[in-house]
């Protein structure tokens, strides 16, 4: 297919291939979750697969491949890893707060009220808002 691949010794090629498959498989699984999970707050967990281990293993694969190909340590992929580690939590928490704010302003019953107000609603610490999976709900209706 392409020429540089041939210049790499077998073990490095094998490890790179496995890491690449693992990384892209995880990224794909994450996006599948984005498509398949039913509620927004559940979907927020899905892309984390790609942003942690998914891009991590592809970066390790790239580091290994270029280090072997160019016969010198190529480490600048660490920068993307650091960037991902620092930025993903920020974007996700910001987005979660924005979604919570929007849902609360529409009085969505599935979303807990603001933490300060929870006491006023005589809610004890540790009490939880739990939503059963949609299928279970359907099952419960059928049972009735």
């Amino acid at each position: 297919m392409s020429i540089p691949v041939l210049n790499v010794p077998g073990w490095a090629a094998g490890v790179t291939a496995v890491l690449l498959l693992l990384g892209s498989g995880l990224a794909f699984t994450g996006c599948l979750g984005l498509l398949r999970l039913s509620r927004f707050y559940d979907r927020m967990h899905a892309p984390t697969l790609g942003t942690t281990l998914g891009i991590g293993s592809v970066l390790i694969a790239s580091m290994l491949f270029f280090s072997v190909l160019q016969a010198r340590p190529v480490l600048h992929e660490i920068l993307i890893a650091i960037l991902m580690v620092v930025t993903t939590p920020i974007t996700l928490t910001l987005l979660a707060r924005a979604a919570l704010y929007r849902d609360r302003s529409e009085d969505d019953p599935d979303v807990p009220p603001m933490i300060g107000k929870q006491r006023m609603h005589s809610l004890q610490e540790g009490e939880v808002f739990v939503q059963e999976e949609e299928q279970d709900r359907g099952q419960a209706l059928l049972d009735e």
Partner: protein
Amino acid sequence: MLRRWLPFPLLTAALILTWLLLNESLSPGAILLGTLLALIVSRLVVRFEIPRSRIIRPISALKLACNVLVEIVRSNNAVARIILMPNKRYRSGFVLIPLDMRNPYGLTLLACIITATPGTLWVEFDSKEHAMLLHVLDLIDEDEWRRIIKERYEKRLMEIFE
């Protein structure tokens, strides 16, 4: 003098390292320019009035980092299983967790750890009530999660920073 030019030594070191990685060279010119830029930037950062803090126990910080890495791998597996098995039942929900930690860096790091781990998400923090709202994808037992967050992460972060 040292305090004036190196207000945040860790930040300066990180900036020099970033510069060298971006340039992909260890030549004297790159090191000199990187050091100069890092010194200037870290002096400018003082204007943001960042609260001071330092890591008291670097070894336990390293241990925590290893634990978090293992936890990330494990929960990647768990979340991938939930997504790929269509019939697997799960129950997601919010858990309110009161926190004892007050150090802003500790709280930030806790938020980052929780959000970076697939399956758990830091949703909200109330600085008056000192409580956080956690969203868990596979919520089996609420008290179990409160215990996990407090014992596994909060206690050790407090050890590291306070």
